[in-house]
């Protein structure tokens, strides 16, 4: 049983999805979906327990040894990402039921949960696999299900946003496929560990270089690295309320995980950073992304778009951490993956609760909501402080590592810029808090009440997690530090 865990964590949501689609009663479908998500989360915690301390599990699909068959590989990094995906999926789906209820027919709910589960399963699949082509297969599932989820948004603009994402996502996926094909062409294998063994000898081969270029661009599209982020703000802004919380928390993070995996493990440190000098590309782009996205966020009048632009900026932090190429930077990137996912999921969920009550995400309409919905807004404030990076919240931990990574390199201006950008986060989060607490409430929203506990509890769980992981950093920064050292080849 225990040795089957890598397959089980993936199969739980993947099998619940078709069953959900067959259940016409949306309520039963929700019970099944939520149960499978929570069980998968438990399995993920079990996986983490097995690999804790730097062990690796290898699971041979179909009993065929790699590189002939497909291998699932789980180490601390992938276990962390699996926990991120499953736990947050479980928390968000608990809230999803309430936010879906009024809009669709019952059977539509079941289909919605099925698409959601497929998305969860595919993200897990991408994370746990040790096979390059398998990454692509599950990337397809995740893309398709994400398009469907986004397109179910409030109005026609959701369809347009989804279509844009579809076009860009397809280009990205094609690039990734070309890249994997090229790698196979020159090595004859698809297994990641096997590729890592064979690629260094071919570092002068132009096919490998081209595959690297295609891969970076393709994944950068999925991660939404500046300037390939154009699909993200609209997709997040027009996606259905609570779904945004899940997508913002997990989808881009898993893509970033793929980027880290391939840059460090498959292509190798030397090839990626010393021969191709990917850091020279990523550092300026991520700095530009942080500044421009934060500035744009400040000038947004729509709360959802504001948070979406803030996501682009926060992804910049993570990419910057990767590109710094020292232990502190990489620790920051990985820890921030987890912390930001947690904070953004909570923020979007709290926002979803407010939108659910006032049916609009414009800042003007949220005026005075802090008095009508004090608990939701309090959670939002706590999470917002985390996003800014106030001490004793999770956001502070990752920013601290990032700044020390910049200082390790001796780049004081960069550290100053990071503090400056945190101030920008203070401004845009402050904008929402200001509107919510200190503006008079609109008369038509005078009747607005507190949201039901099904959404409120997940919100507060995220908020409390954000504080807990600001104090106890064993799971986030601890794992991230060990992973960073092993990725950089430093034996501790």
């Amino acid at each position, binding site marked *: 049983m225990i040795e089957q865990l890598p397959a089980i964590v993936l199969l739980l949501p993947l099998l619940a999805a078709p069953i959900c689609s067959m259940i016409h009663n949306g309520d039963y479908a929700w019970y099944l979906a939520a149960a499978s998500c929570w069980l998968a989360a438990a399995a993920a915690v079990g996986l983490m327990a097995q690999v804790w301390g730097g062990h690796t599990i290898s699971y041979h699909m179909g009993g065929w040894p790699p590189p*002939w068959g497909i291998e699932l590989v789980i180490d601390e990094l992938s276990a962390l990402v699996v926990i991120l995906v499953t736990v947050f999926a479980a928390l968000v789906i608990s809230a999803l039921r309430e936010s879906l209820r009024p809009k669709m027919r019952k059977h539509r709910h079941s*289909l919605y949960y099925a698409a959601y589960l497929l998305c969860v399963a595919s993200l897990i699949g991408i994370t746990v696999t040790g096979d390059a082509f398998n990454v692509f297969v599950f990337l*397809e599932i995740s893309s*398709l*299900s994400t398009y*469907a989820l986004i397109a179910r948004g409030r109005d026609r603009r959701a369809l347009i946003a989804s279509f844009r994402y579809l076009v860009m996502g397809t280009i990205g996926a094609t690039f990734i496929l070309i890249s994997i094909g090229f790698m196979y062409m020159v090595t004859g294998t698809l297994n990641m560990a096997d590729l890592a063994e064979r690629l260094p000898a071919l570092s002068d081969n132009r*096919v490998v270089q081209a595959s690297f270029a295609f891969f970076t661009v393709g994944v950068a599209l999925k991660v939404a690295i500046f300037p390939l982020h154009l699909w993200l703000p609209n997709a997040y802004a027009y996606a259905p309320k609570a779904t945004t919380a899940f997508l913002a928390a997990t989808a881009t993070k898993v893509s970033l995980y793929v980027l880290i995996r391939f840059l460090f493990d498959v292509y190798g440190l030397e090839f990626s950073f010393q021969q191709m000098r990917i850091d020279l590309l990523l550092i300026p782009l991520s700095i530009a992304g942080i500044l421009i996205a934060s500035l744009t966020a400040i000038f947004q009048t729509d709360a959802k778009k504001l948070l979406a632009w803030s996501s682009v900026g926060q992804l910049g932090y993570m990419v910057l951490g990767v590109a710094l190429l020292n232990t502190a930077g990489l620790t920051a990137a990985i820890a921030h993956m987890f912390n930001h996912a947690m904070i953004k999921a909570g923020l979007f969920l709290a926002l979803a609760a407010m939108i659910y009550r006032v049916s609009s995400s414009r800042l003007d309409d949220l005026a005075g909501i802090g008095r009508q919905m004090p608990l939701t807004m309090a959670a939002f404030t706590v999470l917002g402080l985390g996003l800014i990076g106030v001490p004793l919240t999770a956001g502070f931990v990752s920013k601290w590592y990032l700044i020390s990574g910049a200082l390790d390199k001796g780049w004081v201006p960069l550290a100053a810029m990071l503090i400056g950008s945190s101030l920008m986060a203070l401004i845009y989060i402050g904008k929402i808090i200001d509107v919510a607490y200190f503006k008079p409430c609109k008369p038509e929203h005078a009747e607005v009440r507190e949201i039901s506990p099904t959404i409120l509890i997940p919100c507060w769980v995220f908020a409390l997690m954000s504080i807990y992981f600001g104090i106890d950093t064993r799971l986030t920064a601890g794992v991230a530090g060990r992973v960073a050292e092993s990725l950089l080849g430093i034996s501790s």
Partner: protein
Amino acid sequence: MINMVLLMLLLASVYAIIRLDRLLTAVLLTSLFSVLVASIFMVLDAVDVAFTEAAVGAGVSTIFFLAALAIVGRQCKPTPRRKIIAPLIVVSATGCVLLYASLDMPRFGEPLAPVHQHVAPRYLNDSAAEVGPPNIVTSVLASYRGYDTFGEVGVVFTAFIGVLMLLGAGTRRTSIEPPTPTGAPKESMRKKVVLKEVADLVIAPVLIFALYVQWHGDFGPGGGFQAGVIFASGIFLYALIYGIEPAQRLLPPRRLAYFPAIGLLLYAAVGIISMLRGGNFLNYSVLVNDPLHGQHYGILAIELGVGITVAAVMINIFFSFSERSL
């Protein structure tokens, strides 16, 4: 030599698709393009791939394109010049990188290329003893890399969920009278008679051929995916000749909507049974006492799952599209 000629024809068809501005023509030429690609795959000896391309690209996707055109209209607006620039840059950059990479690629058909040296020899030499089917492509797809195929079925299923969420299904509308065709009704009836007779003649063989492809996949080219597509196209033919309503009476959409999930679950069930019998997921060798027999049963079962899912998804999508365009 044949390769070069086919590639020239392929280029010509691509040029035609780009140059002709009517969408219907573009759809027609796309189907031609797919057959040419299938022929090239054939010349390259990739029979299974050619099979899929011929069935999907030339048949089903043409029909889906048409169904989509019926919803969105036939004309496309001319793209303004400035909007062409960004895609042009992306495409040319991609082309340049591809050309750059082609400088170091192994020579065409080179037996010493890494692809033939590392993983492939075991598939070629040992698959008959380890897995069984004479068609090595089937062994690789269904057993060695069965998990990928499972994922692909998942992709098809996800597409189904997506279409169902966006277009809806089972929303049977009251029948709308078909617009009377311009021209002499007598002649149009006569046309119907010829087509109907031919369709009656062809539909049953198409379905039987689909079953042949389904069960013959171990030996020759084919398998669940191709079989599903061919089966679906037989149903399309029925729906096209007799109209969508009789086809839906034959296959009620409400019940049909279960089948994609059933196919996927059948595939997974094989994997789970092997897990219960102590092997890893999708390890068919432990299904029965003799590993080779286990592989055989496992492959047959999962191919059936693939076939059910693919056929049901295609038919469902077709119904959703056609209902929408009424």
